[in-house]
Each structure stands twice: as C-alpha cells, then as structure tokens.
C-alpha cells in the first residue's frame, strides 16, 4: 500500500516535470512577459487567463487515470491564475479548467469542477488580501505559492469527500490520490513560480544592463557633436562608445572620409583617409543599417588583408530631412561574436548622435540668422553716421538754429526711411528723398568740403526699385570716396535711359574704389544681388573707376511702366 502510494507520487511528479518543461519553454516567449508582475490592465489579465487556463487543461491531460478518476496537476494553473491575476482571473481559470474536467466525465466530475473553481478563487483571494496589505513581494515567493497550492489541494480532497457519491468510493479515491496530488501540486506550483522568477530576473538583468549602458553613453556623449560634426568631436564620441560597449573597434565617418577610429586596427584605419569599405558606401547610399556578421555576410577589411576585424555594423547618421551625413561603424574581431546588445545599442547611439548633429546645425543656423539681423539693425541705426550727425547739429545750433531744426528734420526723414525692410519696393522719388536727407546732413558736416549735384529728369521719378539701393551707393561714395580726399569732394547723381534700361549713375571725384572680397552687409554687392533677383541678370550694379580721378557706380534698372510683377 505504502509502496503503491510512493509509486503514484513518483509517477505524478514525472508527469508534472513534463508539464514544467512546457512551462519553461513557454517562459521564453513574450507570452510570459505580462505574467512577470501583478496584472492590473485588461489585456494583461486576458493574457494571464489564457495562459493559466491552458495550463489548467494541460494539468488534466497529464494526469494519471486511477479507477475512473484522474490524479492531476490542474490546481497549479488555477492557483497561479488566481494569485497573479486576482479573484476574477482565478475564477475564470478555475471555471474553464473545471468545465473541461467536467466534460471528461467520471464519478468525480462534479466534485472536480467545483474544487477547481474553488482553487482559482483561493488563489484570487490570497492575491487580493496581499495587494490590500501592500505585500506584493510575498506574492512572488515560491513558498507562498506552494503553501496556497497545498491548502487548495486539501480543500479539493474535502470537496471530493463532500460531493462525490457514493462516499465509500470517494473515500477510497481520496486515500489513493491525496498524497501524490498534494505533493506534486505543491512542488509544481512552487517551481512554476520559480521559473517565472528566473525569467524575470534574466529579463531585468538584460534590460538593466542595456539601459545603464545606453544611459551612460548618452550622458557621456551629451552635446559632443552639437558644436560641430568634425574630426575632433567624432574622436571623443568614438572613444566613449568604444569604452562603454567594449566592441573591438569604433569608427565614425562623414559621407567621404573617416573622421575617427578607435580600437583594433587603428594602425591602418587612419582618420582623414577616404572611405574604402563597400558596406559603408552601401549604408550611405541606401540610408540603411548594414550588418556584415562575417558568416552569412562576409566581411573583410578593405584596407589590409591581415586585419583582425571580422564583422562590422554600419549605421547611417542622419541630418536634416533624414539625409545621411555620415556613419557610425562598430567592429568585432574575427574571434568574437557580435552581441545583439551591441547591435541594438549601436542603432540607438546613431539615433542619439543624429539628433545632436541636427540640433548643432539648427544652432548654427539660428546664430547666422541672429548675426545677419544684428547686421541689418546696425545698418539701420548706422551709428557712425548718427553720432557724426548729432555732433554736426550740436555745432550748428549755436550759429544757426533754423538750419539746425532743418537738419533734425532731415535726420528723422533719414531714419524713418532707413527702418524700411530691404525687401520693400519704392519709387525713385522715394529713394531720392532718402538720399537727399542723408546728403543734407553730410553737406552740413563737411561744410565746404563737399559739393553735390543731382540731375534726374522728372520722367524717371516713378521708376520702381528695391528700397536701399541708391542710398547705400551714395553713402559709399562719400564714406570711401570724397571723405578720403584732402581737397573738396564732388558727388554727381544723374541718369540716362537706353532702350528699356535705366542707368542711375553715382559719381565721385575720388577714384578710390577697391573691390572688397565678400563686400559689406548692406553694401554694393547686396544691392546688386537684390536687383538681379528681382529684375534678372541683365540688371544690377556696375562700377567704373579711374584711379584718383573718379568712381562711377551705375545702377541698371528696368524702365518698365507696369510694376505689377513685383512680389
């Protein structure tokens, strides 16, 4: 009798082992991820229900037929479902497993169904009780799970005794199956939880390692490429990646050449040299990650045949509009496998760096924009002119208050016109008013040293031209021309038409024009470009210079009568 009992225990334990192997294998799938913590959300509860119902039914199938009944490990599924999913999931699992058992028939069918539902409920109630007390940690201990399973099995035995008829048969059955079922369900539940815990530990270890490395790289590489995607910054970043990932070597390239290389093979992978690897070209051309693992996709160093590097991962770096601006390459030597972790990390790092490069370019552009705005503002305020004008007026006030008042009028006209946007279009009459306001002040300032003659026929005064085209030219003629003369300066402004081209000529008697490379902010070059953009390359600014005699700046404008094509 005792021998029989022992035999049954062994047999059921064997069955349970098969059951646990299935559990172990399933634990490798994503199916188990929701089971690793207390489930609250509905999809997780559903997953919990499905998995444990399956195990519940499996438990019935892996049972031993004794007389007309089945010694089984069904309780594992029901108890765990309840423990992890709460009373509702526990009941649902118990009900599903119970119905299945009921459908198989036999004298204990009803008793087994009731007991399975009870087991699920017990698990669920323990779950709720622990959650309410905030002791979730205990929930995940194999000891507790084993204990609950043992209690649930005892309940099952009592239910069989209470429900199954005739009682003598039930008593005999319980005598046979009680010990094997108590032992195997208790151990089985505890081990099932153990599997879950191991799986969770592995998963957490992996993700912890991953996140801590990723965070460390992110922290160390913060802003490294923001102030420029160049050799110096790339070398810093490559070193960080090399140190943190532990790969064989790290390279960073732009679209044409190697910017940085750290690690194995740095004796012949030299920064500054052009890209030679076909994989890199492929990654750049297709904007895709290229992975040459050295087996399925052969890798061989394109520079030196004896290079110990055996596999490479090439990840494109993206700038504006996802355009490839370069690549990051990770290498492993021939004797080492490329870890999945490093592959994923590599792609993440590339994303991080792409962002930085992009942010850096945005920074640079904003700076440029700010600079050109300051330049425009500076030109509009024209401090040199302003302070000289104020000084002149302050001297004139003493001897001729009326003249001073007129000069202040001119000064305010000048600044009002100056505050126009350079994109505005004005008539020649408008522009001439600007020029006149400017000249009146300069005439007072250079008193006697400057002579101005303006000779523009009435019929040209309606011609349209970009704002700030004539005034900067006249200002240049004085600033860089006549004001550099020891004797008297003469400025002449006149115009003539030639077909549909109007030529406005600003002429000085200094002849000191020297073309400056690049030109200055709102100077002649800019006037030329603005006219060409608006009216075409036939028009623009031309300069004639007779050294020490005269400089003539000629603005060529369309003499069109219909100004509608302006923007």
């Amino acid at each position, binding site marked *: 009798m005792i021998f029989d009992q022992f035999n049954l225990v062994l047999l059921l334990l064997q069955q349970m082992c098969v059951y646990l192997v299935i559990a172990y294998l399933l634990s490798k799938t994503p199916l188990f991820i929701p089971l690793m913590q207390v489930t609250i959300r509905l999809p997780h509860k559903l997953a919990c229900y499905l998995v444990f119902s399956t195990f519940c039914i499996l438990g019935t199938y892996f049972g031993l037929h004794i007389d007309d009944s089945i010694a089984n490990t069904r309780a594992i599924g029901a108890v765990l479902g309840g423990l992890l999913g709460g009373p509702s999931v526990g009941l649902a699992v118990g009900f599903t497993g119970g119905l299945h058992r009921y459908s198989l028939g036999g004298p204990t069918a009803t008793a087994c169904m009731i007991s399975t539902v009870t087991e699920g409920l017990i698990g669920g109630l323990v779950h709720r009780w622990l959650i309410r007390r905030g002791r979730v940690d205990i929930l995940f201990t194999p000891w507790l799970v084993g204990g609950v399973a043992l209690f649930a099995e005892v309940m099952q035995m009592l239910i069989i005794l209470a429900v199954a008829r005739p009682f003598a048969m039930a008593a005999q059955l319980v005598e046979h199956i009680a010990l094997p079922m108590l032992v195997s369900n208790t151990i089985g539940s505890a081990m099932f939880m153990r599997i879950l815990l191991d799986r969770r530990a592995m998963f957490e270890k992996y993700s912890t390692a991953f996140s801590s490395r990723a965070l460390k790289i992110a922290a160390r590489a913060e802003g490294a490429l923001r102030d420029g995607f160049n050799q110096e910054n790339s070398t810093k970043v490559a070193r960080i990646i090399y140190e943190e990932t532990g790969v064989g070597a790290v390279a960073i390239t732009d679209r044409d050449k190697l910017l940085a290389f750290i690690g194995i093979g740095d004796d012949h992978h030299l920064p500054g040299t052009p890209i030679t690897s076909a994989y890199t070209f492929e990654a750049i051309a297709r904007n895709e990650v290229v992975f040459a693992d050295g087996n399925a996709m052969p890798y061989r160093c394109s520079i030196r045949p004896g290079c110990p590097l055996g596999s490479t991962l090439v990840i494109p770096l993206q700038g504006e509009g996802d355009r490839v601006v370069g690549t990051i390459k990770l290498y492993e030597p021939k004797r080492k496998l490329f870890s999945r972790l490093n592959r994923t990390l590599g792609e993440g790092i590339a994303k991080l760096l792409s962002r930085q490069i992009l942010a850096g370019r945005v920074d640079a552009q904003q700076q440029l924009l700010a600079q050109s705005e300051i330049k425009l503002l500076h030109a509009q305020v024209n401090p040199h002119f*302003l302070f000289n004008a104020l*000084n002149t007026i*302050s*001297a*004139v006030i003493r001897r001729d208050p009326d003249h001073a008042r007129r000069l202040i009028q001119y000064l305010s006209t000048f600044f009002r016109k100056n505050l126009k946007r350079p994109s505005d279009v004005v008539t020649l009459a408008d522009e001439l008013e600007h020029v006149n306001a400017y000249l009146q002040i300069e005439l007072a300032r250079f008193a006697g040293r400057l002579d101005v003659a303006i000779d523009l026929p009435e019929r040209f005064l309606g011609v349209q031209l970009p704002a700030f085209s004539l005034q900067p030219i006249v200002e240049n003629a004085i600033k860089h021309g006549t004001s550099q003369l*020891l004797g008297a300066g003469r400025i002449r402004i006149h115009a003539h038409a030639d077909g549909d081209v109007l030529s406005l000529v600003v002429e000085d008697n200094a002849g000191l024009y020297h073309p400056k490379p690049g030109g200055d902010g709102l100077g002649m070059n800019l006037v030329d470009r603005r006219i060409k953009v608006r009216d075409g390359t036939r028009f623009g600014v031309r300069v004639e210079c007779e050294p020490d005699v005269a400089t003539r700046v000629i603005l060529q404008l369309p003499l069109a009568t219909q100004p509608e094509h302006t923007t």
Partner: protein
Amino acid sequence: MIRILIVDDEPLARDELAELLAPEADLQIIGQAGNAIEAIAAINRLHPDVVFLDIQMPQISGLQLLAMLDPERMPHIVFVTAFDEFAVQAFEEHAFDYLLKPVEPARLAKTLARLRKERAPQQIDAIGGNAPLTQLPCYGHNRVYLLKVDAVEYALSRLSGVYLVDADGNEHFTELTLKTLEDKTPLLRCHRQHLVNPARIAEIRFGDNGAADIHTVGGLTVPVSRRFLRTVKDALGII
C-alpha cells in the same frame, strides 16, 4: 599756459571744440588742422602741448598719425571720436584720455582738470603708435599719396622741408621729420641732413678728408659725413 592744437576734418567740429575751450583763460588754441598732413606740419612747427585729435580723417587716421610724429617731441594726445567702439576700448584699456562727440562740457572739464594737473607720458605704442612705418605719406598736387619705404633711395632735409628721393631721382615732399624717419623706418642716418636706404646702397667711395659718398642702386649719390661714417660702416658690417 597750455598750448592746444585741434585736429579734425570737419570744420564745424573744430569750431565747436574751439568754442567750448575758449572760456578757459589758461588755454591757448595755437592752431587747427583739417587732416593728418596739416597736423604733422603744425605739430612739427608749433610744438603744441596738447593735441585734440579726431580719429576718423581722410587718408591717414588719427591713430596712424601717431606713428608719424617725432617720438621725442610727442605732444599729449586727447582723442576725439564720434563712434569707434574698438578705439574707445583700446583707450579705456590703456588709460588714454578721449572725448566722445558731441562733446559733453562736464566731461571736457574733467579732461582739462587732468591736463592742468599733470601730463604723464602716454603709452603711445600700446595703441599702435610706435609701429614701424612701411608707407610714407607724401604731399603733392593737392593730394596725399603713400610712398613705400622700399622705393625710397634716400631722404634729405632742406630749408623748405624733408624730401624722399626715389630711384628715378624724383623728390617727394613729406611732413615727416628726419628723426621720425630714422626711428620708424630702416632708413639709416649718414649725414646731418641725409638718410639712406641701406637696401639700396650699391657702393661707398671714400674721400681724402675722412668723408665718403654712397652710390645707390638707382645711380644717385648721397654724402656721408665723417661723423656718421662709423655708424654706416657698423650698420653694413664693414670693419
């Protein structure tokens, strides 16, 4: 009595400053100059104690002018400018006195108070005032032009002024003194009234009386006095 020269290319600005200075009994405005050339001439001739010097002037700026003055008779300089942030920054750094136009009477009073108390030597070289001259301002035909030092064969001083002579024998009038040329250019003193460009010396012919003549590459002759023969020989490495 402090003797003052006003240098500014704008007549109104000169008048304005002169008017502000007029009530001061211990000041005497001894002249005005409208450009750097006039200023050099006036400074060399009148030896003012103080020069109110505008920076922005035709051809040669106030700052460039400094390098063209005789370092040993350097007047005290007060810069005047309407707007020149870089120059002003330099003045602040080297404790140079300067006035901003339009000139504020209170600020001018402060400057005058300092001038009356003491006129400490100014660090002219700190603002580029002692830089070697590579181009020399010459005056002719009512305009200033700049002559490269390399093109000068020799310089001579006459009663009418200082002249630079080029390889073709053309004489160029300059307001620079021989002393300034000697100090600020490679030109070498060979005679009380002559400097010679050592790079242009072709040969030295020794005379009987201990004097000598230099013949230049351009075929011109420059006298060497007994007094300066030694220094010429030293400079050329002749024993």
